[in-house]
């Protein structure tokens, strides 16, 4: 990855996350956006289709749809069809409960969609403690349905303290189902902030996970674990935060943010009801500040070239300091474990 070109600024994102609705039929404890009811004044169908046209015009390669549960939007298939008609690649993050054979068959007609089904444990009890009753079977049913289709499908698991010991079993489950495994980082935003202390992986779990990732290079992480990247995985993905440089987030009401974990007024880069996407991407002060963000406090770290200070969103949520360095980076995890061990030895 050439940071030189990324930091100089691209003409548009390579991909973006579009949270098409806040509506969700589940109440997952780690939900990054506290999804439940639809947001007041979500983008209309006409506005959504206009945005698709703009993103295509701007050269955005891929749209990653999330929410909320995207299929809660009655016009979601229409929005997808508009993307595919323009040759735009799409990825849908879904809880799987609303995937029907008819929808899968319809989506199978294009080769431009990939689907991630959320499953937060290899054990039913682990998954349902996070996502709610009935979610495990619903996700497995959706995964089985998708595995019989040509749609590239993955299990998407958010790494938490509860499921960290089940990652290998999830990998095996994915293999049995004929899909792949993708693991995402748990961040303290939305309901995830309310349940942070209970669900956050321990430093030991994060270090173990980093080592496991090094041995399992086929596991995708959506680049959300670059703060933990081992030397073995260097070159497989990003080594810096891509927010406002390679990607960004569009919220349900048309507000644009650097990333999905920073959807607040403070980080609003613009509103698509007032400006075009291109105007926001090119001129937003928030985006300009993210492109110039340097985590100086991390520059002396031996791992700086591997993560460049890690995830600013986690630093913001945990330390209220966007420039403060990722509190859960590999170096800090290792240091924290060593300090705990030293304390234990001294006691």
């Amino acid at each position, binding site marked *: *990855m*050439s940071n030189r*070109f990324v930091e*100089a600024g*691209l*003409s548009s994102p*390579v*991909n973006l996350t579009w949270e098409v609705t806040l509506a969700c039929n589940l109440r997952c404890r780690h939900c990054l956006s506290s999804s439940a009811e639809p947001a007041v004044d979500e983008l209309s169908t006409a506005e959504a289709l206009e945005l698709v046209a703009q993103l295509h015009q701007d*050269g955005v*390669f*891929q749209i990653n749809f999330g929410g909320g549960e995207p299929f809660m939007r009655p016009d979601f298939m229409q929005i997808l069809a508009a993307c595919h008609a323009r040759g735009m*690649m799409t*990825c849908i993050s879904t809880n799987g409960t609303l995937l029907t054979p008819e929808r899968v068959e319809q989506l199978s007609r294009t*080769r431009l969609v*990939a689907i991630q089904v959320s499953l937060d444990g290899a054990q039913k009890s682990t998954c349902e403690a996070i996502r709610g009753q009935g979610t495990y079977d619903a996700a497995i049913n959706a995964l089985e349905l998708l595995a019989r289709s040509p749609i590239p499908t993955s299990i998407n698991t958010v790494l938490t303290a509860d499921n960290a010991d089940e990652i290998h079993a999830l990998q095996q489950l994915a293999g049995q189902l004929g899909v792949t495994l993708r693991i995402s980082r748990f961040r303290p935003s939305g309901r995830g902030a309310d349940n942070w202390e209970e669900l956050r992986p321990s430093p030991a779990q994060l270090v173990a996970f980093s080592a496991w990732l090094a041995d399992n290079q086929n596991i995708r992480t959506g680049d959300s674990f670059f703060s933990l990247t081992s030397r073995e995985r260097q070159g*497989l*993905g990003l080594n810096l935060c891509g927010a406002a440089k*390679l990607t960004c987030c569009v919220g349900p009401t048309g507000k644009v943010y650097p990333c999905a974990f920073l959807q607040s007024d403070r980080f609003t880069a613009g509103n698509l009801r007032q400006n075009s996407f291109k105007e926001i991407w090119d001129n937003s002060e928030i985006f300009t500040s993210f492109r110039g963000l340097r985590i100086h406090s991390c520059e002396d770290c031996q791992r700086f070239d591997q993560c460049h200070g890690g995830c600013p969103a986690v630093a913001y949520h945990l330390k209220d300091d966007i420039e403060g360095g990722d509190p859960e980076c590999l170096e800090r995890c290792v240091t924290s474990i060593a300090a705990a061990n030293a304390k234990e030895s001294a006691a």
Partner: protein
Amino acid sequence: MTAAGIKLHPACRVRQEEFGLLFYDSRGPSLLFAETGRLLDPDYFDRVRGRGEFPAGLSAQQKQALQNFISTLLERGFLREQ
């Protein structure tokens, strides 16, 4: 026997940036930044091309550089032969 043609892999996209061409592979996803300037238009990859088929007016040196570049794209999976 006809020579194999090359085409952008269906999972890949390309666009023009100031530095040159930006390739995106949705299977990784992964990116490739090519400092090609304006030497090659992204539209070049829209259809099947012969291995030595380049825009008119290029010098021998530029053609050789593009040949090497095409080989890299093939190796990295952004292009495929058909």
